[in-house]
């Protein structure tokens, strides 16, 4: 391992390519922590936004007019406004008026931290798209299927969970895949509220080391790599869940 690190040190001395994230242990730890934070934020948002999507799509099939109208309002608002302004709105506007609470050492701190606000805001943003995607998936399930479930004595919720959702989920996986890739890319926005994710720690590193060019390229390749891993896993999952007789 040491040999690899020292090779990067040699690379800097011989060719001026300053990849301090490899040979400098402080930068290495910072970068690794940023990578972990980005992955953690992405995973939390993926799970939360899928839950929002499933619940929202369920509410949209409700018999009450106002439930589906409310969900529709939520979708349209979050889809047609910039995610950055949404994040500012959550963090500065709503976070700003919430009363402060004392922490363990008695300091008055905001009740919700910046990481949590980023997770909430991005989940709502991606969730709005997920509701649409799941709704389209549910619509692809023919009515006769849910009627058959009803004939077998399933309640509306039961037939949604056991019959419709498993089918709808498989149909909408490709679209969901797209949206989740977008979500991972949108986690960079957490930079603006100082969440120590990949972009934020990289900006700290390039301020210290003046290696903007190297860090920029590292960043681009890291994100393309992260997205590639997600796409690979989603494709594997898609294959496992494939309905026999559909698609090639």
């Amino acid at each position, binding site marked *: 391992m040491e040999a690899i690190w020292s090779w990067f040190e040699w690379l800097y001395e011989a060719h001026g390519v300053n990849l301090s994230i490899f040979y400098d242990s402080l930068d290495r730890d910072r970068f690794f922590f940023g990578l972990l934070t980005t992955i953690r934020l992405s995973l939390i948002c993926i799970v939360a936004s899928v839950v929002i999507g499933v619940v929202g799509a369920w509410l949209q099939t409700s018999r009450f007019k106002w439930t589906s109208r409310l969900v529709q*309002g939520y979708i*349209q*608002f979050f*889809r*047609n*406004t*910039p*995610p*950055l*302004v*949404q994040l*500012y*709105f959550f963090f*500065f*506007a*709503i976070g*700003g*008026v919430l009363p402060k609470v004392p922490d363990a050492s008695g300091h008055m701190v905001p009740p919700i931290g910046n990481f949590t606000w980023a997770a909430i805001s991005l989940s709502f943003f991606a969730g709005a798209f997920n509701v*649409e*995607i799941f*709704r*389209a*998936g549910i*619509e*692809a*399930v*023919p009515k*006769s*299927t849910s009627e*058959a479930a009803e004939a077998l004595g399933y309640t509306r919720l039961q037939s949604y969970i056991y019959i419709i959702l498993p*089918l709808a989920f498989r*149909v*909408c996986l490709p*679209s969901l895949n797209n949206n989740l*890739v977008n979500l991972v*890319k*949108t*986690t*960079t*926005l957490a*930079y*603006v509220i100082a969440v120590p994710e990949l*972009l934020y720690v990289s*900006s700290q590193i390039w301020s210290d080391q003046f290696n*903007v*060019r190297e860090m*920029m390229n590292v*960043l*681009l390749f890291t*994100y*393309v790599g992260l*997205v*590639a891993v997600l796409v690979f896993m989603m494709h594997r999952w898609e294959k496992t869940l494939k*309905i026999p007789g*559909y698609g090639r």
Partner: protein
Amino acid sequence: MSGARKHRSVGGTGNLAVLKPFSLHNAAPSAWRLQPGHGYMLFAALVLFVLVGEVQAAPARPSIIATMWKWTPFLLQGFAFNILISFVSIIIGTMAGAALGLGQISVSRPIRAVSWTVTQFFRNAPWLVLLFYCIFLIPFEFELFGVTIPFPAWIKAVIGLSLPVMANFSEIVRGAVQSIPDGQWEAAESLAYTRRQTLWLIVLPQCIKRMLPPWMNLYAVLTMATPLVSIVGVGEGMTTTGEILAAENRSDLLIPFYMYLLCLFFIYCYPIARWTISLERKFAVKI
């Protein structure tokens, strides 16, 4: 209205218990025109947030509505800059993306490979990272034939936004050309059209219609990405809002002003989204 809401059934499978085609926009209302309901909803949201602020406001201060009215011209000026950036970026991005997209369907293998790689790379990189990339790595001035051409930050930001637009549009072009049936190419060939003639005179004119809805969608996404340039220090609507809030220095204004900006974007982007859906439906291939 009720007719448009009905599902299109495919072939003879209308009533069989098989899955129907997946379509994202089937259940949305058919006409793109805004209904009064949308206005009421938006107005109710704004009033609600202003009231929340009004309750918190100290009595001696000017009311929130008066303050919002006072700053409206300034805020609109900032928002106009967002729209300007989105216009310039979509123009640059579309032209570069069209070239890249045509490269993706080129007969030459190296051109195809390079175009594909470039497209995938810029499509999968986050917008904000690309923006940082352009801001930091493009020099602030160019020396060309002894003339110094200044390159201010906002031009670099526009280029940074154009890159992902280019990559996304490249995919739109490729998808549209590939969606044209092979029969069109073969028919043109039998009429002695060259490949270039077929592409320009027969295939691309048919593609325009198919590319329009996703292109408009891309424009809406771009417009919603324009506030990102405020992070790299280019002034626009988000910066203006920050300046107003700093000038007023009142915590009760936070929610109304951010909501105001969100509503401005909503008013601009929502009609585009509805129009896109209606065009999509109009141009959809009826099976």
